[in-house]
């Protein structure tokens, strides 16, 4: 039985998160970096280390990542995914090459293991869907011409995540080359099968799942997603993938209601997940990793702006819109932490975790700021060039 300390600690942590979320909302920022810092403060070596609630927070973090990915899968119908893959494939490929490579290379250069370098590539590749969606609506850019381009890139990133996560999980488990190849083949077949079934039978099966009663629907959905996560974990392809695929398989009315019903649960447990990630970090490991993280952030901020700029140009968007697309996509957040979390769970070492955390802290804050600041700057520059004060290049 949990004693009074458990509730006091848990209540203290959740209340602190509430204050931070309010603060972030006031300033107009994503609360994710603040949650990470809160985790740092209550972890080992932090200001007020917690003891009794840590077990619960660890389990809660697992649930958080499952719900985060499930809701991501719910966002899209299989048809949307297929259409996007067809129309935005070039932009998706440029985005992948330009942003995965720097993480991977820098990982090798600073002497991380090949698994850790592979994860670092994923961390620098994935933009934050959550932060970008919020920035889009804050800045009233939803109707802009570059927005469909930005959104399609995010969709492709999310879809590639379904292939990337099992790959990462299998590499982390390691073993002989033949057993890796075997697990890989199994994962590919499985992911392909689920996508195919979702595409064919998604609507019928979602109707079966749907219930007018919120309670029934909530319980059905949660049961389903946990089972899917469990199966995926048993096959060693990461709970997150199971949850994501389950999300894609649910569509129509059931998905619409699920988005409303699960959002508060997701918010709670995702916050717990970010705290848990921060909690695992010893604050003393951050300063030595900061330099590397800043270089990584600088390089991959530039590559994101570049790949976003290119994609918007290919879609026929004008100069200002191209920079808006690029700076918007700069933000990294929940998915980078999710990937780093998988590495942390596999025991990849504190240097890797400290770099990942600092990296996300920097870009989760700078991304939205860059989007806000860059657009007027680009506009002013273009205006001056038009007036002939700047030589046209």
């Amino acid at each position, binding site marked *: 039985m949990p004693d009074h300390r458990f509730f006091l600690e848990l209540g203290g942590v959740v209340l602190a998160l509430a204050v931070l979320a309010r603060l972030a909302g006031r300033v107009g920022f994503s609360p994710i970096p603040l949650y990470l810092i809160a985790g740092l403060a209550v972890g080992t070596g932090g200001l007020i280390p917690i003891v009794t609630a840590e077990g619960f927070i660890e389990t809660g973090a697992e649930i958080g990542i499952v719900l985060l990915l499930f809701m991501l899968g719910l966002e*899209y119908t299989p048809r949307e995914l297929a259409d996007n893959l067809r*129309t935005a494939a070039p932009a998706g490929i440029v985005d992948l090459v330009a942003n995965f490579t720097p993480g991977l290379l820098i990982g090798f250069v600073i002497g991380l293991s090949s698994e850790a370098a592979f994860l670092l590539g994923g961390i620098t590749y994935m933009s934050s869907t959550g932060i970008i969606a919020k920035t889009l609506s804050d800045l009233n850019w*939803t*109707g802009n011409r570059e927005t469909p381009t930005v959104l399609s890139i*995010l*969709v492709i990133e999310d879809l590639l995540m379904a292939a990337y996560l099992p790959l990462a999980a299998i590499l982390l488990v390691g073993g002989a080359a033949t057993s890796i190849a075997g697990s890989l083949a199994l994962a590919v077949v499985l992911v392909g099968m689920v996508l195919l079934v979702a595409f064919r039978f998604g609507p019928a099966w979602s109707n079966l799942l749907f219930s007018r009663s919120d309670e029934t629907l909530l319980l059905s959905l949660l049961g389903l997603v946990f089972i899917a996560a469990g199966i995926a974990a048993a096959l060693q392809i990461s709970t997150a993938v199971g949850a994501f695929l389950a999300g894609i398989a649910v569509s129509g009315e059931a998905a619409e209601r699920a988005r409303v019903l699960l959002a508060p649960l997701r918010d709670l447990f995702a916050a717990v997940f970010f705290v848990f990630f921060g909690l695992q970090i010893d604050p003393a490991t951050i300063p030595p990793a900061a330099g590397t993280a800043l270089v990584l952030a600088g390089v991959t901020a530039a590559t994101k702006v570049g790949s976003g700029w290119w994609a918007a140009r290919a*879609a026929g968007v*004008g100069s200002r819109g191209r920079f808006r697309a690029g700076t918007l996509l700069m933000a990294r957040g929940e998915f980078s932490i999710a990937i780093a979390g998988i590495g942390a769970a596999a025991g990849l070492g504190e240097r890797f975790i400290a770099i990942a955390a600092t990296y996300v802290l920097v870009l989760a804050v700078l991304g939205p700021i860059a989007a806000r600041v860059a657009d007027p700057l680009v506009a002013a520059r273009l205006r001056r060039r038009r007036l002939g004060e700047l030589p046209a290049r």
Partner: protein
Amino acid sequence: MPEQIRRTDGSEIQETALPGVGVRYEFTSSAGVRVAVVHHRSGRRELILFEPDDPDCVQRSVDLDEVDSRTLAEMLGASKVAEHLARLQQSVEGLAIDWLPIGGSTPFAGRTIGDTQARSRTGVSIVAVLRGESASAAPGPEEELRPGDTLVVVGTARGIEQLAEILRSG
């Protein structure tokens, strides 16, 4: 990505999917101003005008909930069917137009317009079936009726009354 939809009157609407958000429709007015509407999945609509010196960027957007959208559509004359009918009514004396809802207890749920024998029994014509946000104009006798539909009917006032009674109790 955008899909061009050419309408019968020669105008063109551009439709662009916004994955995770909804759909954006836009067209250029005859005066050369681009106007867009974003249909959010939540049912919210956003009416959008663009910056003159950066045509990719939203200058002003107006949020419309479902009632607002209907009000605006009506002000713009979207209910052309109703307008035509109103004009028709004025020109033919004794002609009445009415909207008859199909209740949940109607014996005609799942049956067709032909089954009601509206024309032969009451002389009333069913000129449109409104279902949710869609409307099918000039429906054939094979058109199925569902509870929740609304029928737009034309005939004499007496005939319409009779038809309403038939729809209620067969």
